[in-house]
């Protein structure tokens, strides 16, 4: 991993078009400003962990009666 030290207000550039600036540091929290082209996808990393976990949980669904589940959902959609 490349490790760089930056002060508040300083930036790093990734390629020509992505700029990450250290806005503020308060205790353990660092505020970052990110400038990037609109199509760049920027995520908090935890999102991916949550989604993996949720897929995992969904894959181990409990036994259920599909007729009852369908009926409940249909009742809700009708409302």
């Amino acid at each position, binding site marked *: 991993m490349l490790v760089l030290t930056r002060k508040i207000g300083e930036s790093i550039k990734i390629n020509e078009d992505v700029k990450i600036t250290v806005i503020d540091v308060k205790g353990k929290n660092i505020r970052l400003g990110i400038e990037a082209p609109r*199509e760049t*996808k*920027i*995520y908090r990393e935890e*999102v*991916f962990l*949550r*989604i*993996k*976990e*949720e*897929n*995992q*949980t*969904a*894959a181990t*669904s*409990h036994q*259920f*009666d*599909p*007729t*009852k*589940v*369908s009926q*409940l*959902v*249909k*009742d*809700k*959609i009708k*409302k």
Partner: protein
Amino acid sequence: MKLETTRFGTLDIEENQVIEFPDGLYGFEKETGFTLLPFNPNVESPMEWMQSILSPHLAFVITDPHLYVPDYKLKLMEEDKKKVGLEVDAPFLTRCIVTIPENYTEMTANLVAPVVINSQKRIGKQFVLTGMEYDTRHYLLPDEMRTPTATPH
């Protein structure tokens, strides 16, 4: 082709019923093929099963998020569309994976990571939405239809 499944026994499906997921799903990166099956063979349902082609035990319940969140928005960028082989403006299916706990009235849908299916070319991919407006555990039923403590069967 014959398809072994844990839930539905041995099925006979056509090759053209297989949807390719080149990247798999998050946490299931090796699951590169699924087929859609009726949720309940006898009754029409807003839900469907997404059964793995490779793992007999693996099947997800999916549903159309627009049925619950009418203004659900999935903006696909051009490069996203390319990943599922979509031409500009071509229609695609949006489905969310449903988690059904023991108390099934508390079932939830993952609105953050919808599954997008190009049904014409039969290519699918799970996308992750940027932004914070949706939940990975969105209750499908409103409060008054959920029974938090009892486990109805």
